């Protein structure tokens, strides 16, 4: 073997791999093993049960919708924080990370209280016929909350690195402001937006703490997939919980792979446009 100049390869590599193996890989192997216990038929029966399907649909569908909402709002907030100067900008900029820092259980009970029929927001929304707490809408709200920082934080560095002169060139060529935005700026931001979307999506699919309080957890209606796993565990259906866990794991990997493909495609597209 080649002599290495800097010391510590064996120690650091060995430790990292051993630690990773014990903390991450061994438990995941146990998950796969236990899940295989219910067999293929059992898995199909489990996944095609109406209640499971409804829960998965809510977790995945809700996460996709929440991530899309976050792309729009994140673009607005990121743009305003990077491009405009106004009092309190730094404070609001720091505030963006709140959903990362605030424990999910705290966010969960705070959102529930806020949107309950006697809450600060709920009491205004309810007369308009908008019920948030204890409905699927509440699930979306919590998912938007936890995924919010991702789009803003991936967008900000790209936005501030964006050359002003490209926009000025577009305008000097006679483009309207909105044309410049949609034809010049947005395509350049597309890869970052997609990354932010993917991260927000991955986060929301598996979200548990902030959702369960506001969801009300009504079977077939506002029950998310992670909660189903917890319930199966409480009923000592370990194999069922494991199978559902594997399904969720594969689902989030599948989404991540899909999005990374999209990202590569959009990057190529952006490069060709540049």
């Amino acid at each position, binding site marked *: 073997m080649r002599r290495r100049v800097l010391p510590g390869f064996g120690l650091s590599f060995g430790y990292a791999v051993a630690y990773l193996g014990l903390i991450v890989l061994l438990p995941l192997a146990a998950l796969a093993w236990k899940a295989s216990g219910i067999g293929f038929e059992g898995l199909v029966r489990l996944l095609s049960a109406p209640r499971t399907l409804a829960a998965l649909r809510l977790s995945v569908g809700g996460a996709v919708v929440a991530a899309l909402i976050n792309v729009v709002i994140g673009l607005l907030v990121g743009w305003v924080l990077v491009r405009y100067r106004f009092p309190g900008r730094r404070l609001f900029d720091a505030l963006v990370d709140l959903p*990362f820092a605030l424990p999910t259980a705290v966010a969960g009970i705070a959102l529930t209280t806020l949107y309950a029929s006697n809450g600060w927001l709920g009491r205004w929304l309810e007369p308009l016929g908008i019920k948030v707490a204890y409905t699927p809408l509440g699930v979306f709200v919590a998912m938007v*909350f936890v995924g919010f920082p991702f789009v803003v934080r991936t967008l900000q560095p790209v936005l501030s690195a964006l050359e002003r002169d490209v926009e000025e060139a577009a305008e000097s060529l006679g483009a309207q402001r909105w044309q410049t935005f949609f034809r010049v700026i947005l395509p350049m931001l597309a890869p970052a937006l997609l990354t932010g979307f993917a991260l927000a999506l991955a986060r929301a699919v598996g979200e548990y703490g902030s959702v369960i309080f506001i969801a009300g957890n009504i079977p077939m209606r506002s029950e998310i997939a992670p909660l189903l796993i917890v319930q199966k565990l409480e009923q000592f259906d370990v194999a069922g919980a494991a199978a559902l866990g594997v399904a969720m794991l594969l689902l989030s990997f599948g989404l991540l792979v899909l999005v990374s493909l999209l990202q590569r495609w959009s990057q190529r597209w952006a490069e060709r446009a540049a």
Partner: protein
Amino acid sequence: MNARKHSRRVAWPRRMVHLILIVLALVFLTLFLLLPLATVFVEAFRQGIGPYLEAIKEPEALSAIQLTLLVAAIAVPMNVVFGVAAAWAMTRFEFRGKALLGAFIDLPFSVSPVVSGLVYVLLFGAQGWFGPWLDHHGIKIIFAVPGLVLATMFVTLPFVARELIPLMQSQGSEEEEAARVLGASGWQMFFRVTLPNIRWALLYGVLLCNARAMGEFGAVSVVSGHIRGLTTTMPLEVEMRYNEYEYVGAFAVASLLALLALVTLAVKTLLEWRYGDEIAAHAPGGH
């Protein structure tokens, strides 16, 4: 940038657009982020300061605080050592399977917290791989403190490594090579050159790792068993009190966690502002 100059030059319709966009963004941030935060404190003090202090001084609350500190005190240093070792191996050497190692380090971010707890139940629980053996020897991991620590370690594993890898990659190994040529031993090189160069990024990683470790709910809730006074960390105590309609008590404990979040954000902002270039660009942390 010269945004201010720019906005002075532009015509009034465009300035109106700027104003509308700013107002929209701020209204959203206020309603969506500031309001929930305010709710926590308002609800906690709804019945005044007396009941608030009362709620925090209850033995269950105190033991939850203790347990949370204990779990973080074990999980965070473990992940610091792992993060430094992994970053050293990943950025200073070439080896086969490097990309795979990187992917595995990021893995816990894309796993649902509930699944993160579940895997330990499947490993050490009554029906798990090592369950019968552990039971036979009288060792409890699930529904006990070791399980809480393990689940927390799993969830917070990537934080430190993820801060350090891009920074150490961009710093390169020239300074360490210089130290070697000047006669430094491996540990001298590490403590005198490597560590001082990554200290702020390390602190940043520890900060995020700690915030997550203390606030983790999903993974911990699966392995805890919710035994009052024994296996309930602060977020679990919040949940239990809330579910028992003990709102002031729940928000009182929640306010402590929210305070931790605010301190984390403040220190984080300070670090970014003061040592931004020594922390390096980083992708936002997950879950």
